[in-house]
């Protein structure tokens, strides 16, 4: 053990130790400037405008269009109309993930889910009233996107529809149905496209099982599945058309879009979590809801590759591909029936058993 030391070292020396002094000054000034940087927004002299905050959760692929277009557009409109600033706090992940988070109690005021199925789960957990979202415009459906297949440039595996994905040697990247709404849509597309065109349950099942035998990677959300595909995994990715169109409009798309003859149009559901909304924020939420279905917001969605619920707006995006016979979940009896008969009884109980070694 060393001796008692009552004072720091450089005071006790007779000669000033310049090196030590400079060293300490450097350390102190860097720590000080770091502290200044960290606390800057909360310092008293920094101007902070009075704002209202609204918390929005959304499914994975909605991130850009909401953060960069829709919410800022609403912000400006709202400020012009009322002079009030509204701030949006957002979080985007797989639809199943955000649904679980809402059940656990995250302070979401509004959520945009990729499937109605997740809305029903919120009902089960007594977060929402039965069919509460059906009272919103268009029964709560905000926009749509058909499910397509992305393949590598030049289509080396010769894939032209879902039936080609069952061929041996095709590696498929698929989002995980446990957390991703997109994955649920994809399952309906894989089964429904065969079922509705051939009217044959067995062949439809074979197509679903054949595709799943070829799945080489599963990701937590549609967006992370795309990231995996972009990083070189697999030969094909089943995803929202919007995912591919966004890259196409940016000139970044290196993969090729394959439009199946028949595929599902996903429908994205908005839910309002009443118990999290402060009474004084109510009218902002109502205004935002109106805005979401307005022509302005819907055009922004179209610009970003979503198909609007207003058919006439869809003509403005030349990139939308032609699908010979599209279908929606109602053609399969609605989500609750489709979930039970296709996702649970077929995919989970039979296909998963078959592909697990």
């Amino acid at each position, binding site marked *: *053990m*060393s001796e*008692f*030391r*009552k004072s720091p070292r450089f005071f006790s020396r007779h000669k000033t130790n310049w090196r030590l002094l400079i060293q300490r000054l450097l350390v102190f000034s860097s720590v000080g400037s*770091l502290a200044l*940087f*960290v*606390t*800057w*927004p909360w310092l008293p002299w920094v101007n902070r405008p009075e704002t209202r905050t609204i*918390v929005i959760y959304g499914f*994975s692929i909605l*991130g850009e269009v909401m953060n960069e277009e829709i919410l800022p557009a609403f912000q400006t409109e709202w400020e012009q109309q009322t002079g009030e600033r509204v*701030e949006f*706090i*957002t*979080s*985007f*992940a797989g639809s199943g993930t955000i649904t679980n*988070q809402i*059940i*656990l*109690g*995250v*302070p979401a005021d509004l959520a945009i889910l990729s499937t109605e199925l997740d809305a029903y789960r919120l009902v089960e957990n007594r977060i929402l009233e039965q069919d509460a979202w059906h009272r919103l415009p268009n029964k709560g459906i905000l926009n749509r996107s058909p499910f397509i297949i992305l393949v590598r440039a030049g289509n080396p595996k010769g894939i032209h529809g879902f039936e080609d994905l069952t061929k041996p040697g095709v590696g498929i990247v698929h989002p995980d149905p446990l957390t991703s709404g997109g994955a649920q849509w994809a399952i309906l597309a894989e089964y429904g496209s065969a079922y509705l065109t051939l009217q044959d349950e067995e062949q439809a099942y074979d197509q679903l099982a054949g595709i799943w035998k070829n799945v080489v990677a599963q990701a*937590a*959300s549609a*967006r*992370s599945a*795309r*990231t995996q595909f*972009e990083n070189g995994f697999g030969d094909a990715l089943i995803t929202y058309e919007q995912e591919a169109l966004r890259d196409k409009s940016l000139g970044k798309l290196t993969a090729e879009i394959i439009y199946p003859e028949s595929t599902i149009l996903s429908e994205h559901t908005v839910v309002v979590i009443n118990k999290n909304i402060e009474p004084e924020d109510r009218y902002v939420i109502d205004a935002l809801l109106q805005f979401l279905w307005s022509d302005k917001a819907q055009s922004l969605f179209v610009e970003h590759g979503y198909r609007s619920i207003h058919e006439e707006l869809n003509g403005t995006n030349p990139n939308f591909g032609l699908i010979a016979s599209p279908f929606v979940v109602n053609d399969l009896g609605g989500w609750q029936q489709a979930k039970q008969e296709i996702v649970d009884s077929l995919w989970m109980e039979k296909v998963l058993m078959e592909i697990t070694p």
Partner: protein
Amino acid sequence: MSIIDAKAEPGRTSGFFPITILLLVIFPLLIMPLAAIYFFAASSGIKGFIETLRQPDVLFALRFSLLIAFATALINGVLGTYTAYVLAKYQFRGSKALSILVNLPVAIPTVVVGTSLLLLWGPIGILGGFLDPLGVRPMFAPAGVLLAHLFVTFPYMLGAVKPVLDELEKTYEEAAYTIGASKWQTFRYVLLPALRGGLFAGALLTFAHSLGEFGATVLVSGNLRLRTQTAPLYIFAQFEAGNIETANTVAAILATFSFLLFFLLLRFTQNDSQREQE
């Protein structure tokens, strides 16, 4: 003669082989992945780097992470030192069990920590269920992130301080009392100087771990941008979204921070052992 030579300079010639193998193993395992971050950052250019740094999300995530890390180091600094002091000084029934218990967080997977915090403090949790009607909701808020980080990093301070306290003979403390020193004086002039190195090392370790914490944070934070999104969560979200450049920029900054902290740590512990030898 040659035998004596070999004894006098052990390993100079024979060491070549093992050292090369060590480097060959370490290079792809540790050094190349770290280099990849900077390599990628450099190739995306300084302009992209600055542009990323101007985004409010990035600034917030970095600030929030640093603030939480600082708070965690401060709180656990005090709590950990106190725990170490009590455990080193007093022997009581169950003190062994307690000292094992407080070290447990190192062994528990962080995701488990996140889950258990949610099941305790979350709106559907054991305590959270009572607090929720009162409007107290620690989870999915900065407080929740802090709670998670305090849990996860608790043992680091303890681990740095306790060995010093164990070694520090009681006689010093007692001697101080006999010459009339008050409790505070004893702490200030006897314990604190001896603990300085340990305190510093522990605080830095806590800070560094808090800065990089992911598993528990991702569960308890709700991953809300501009509110609870820490830098590691931001990196993960951006990477998943395919914005690899943005993710990498923040990763490079975080890595640089960690290096700086580590070198600081190394320097201080070295200084300390040097001083002891003086």
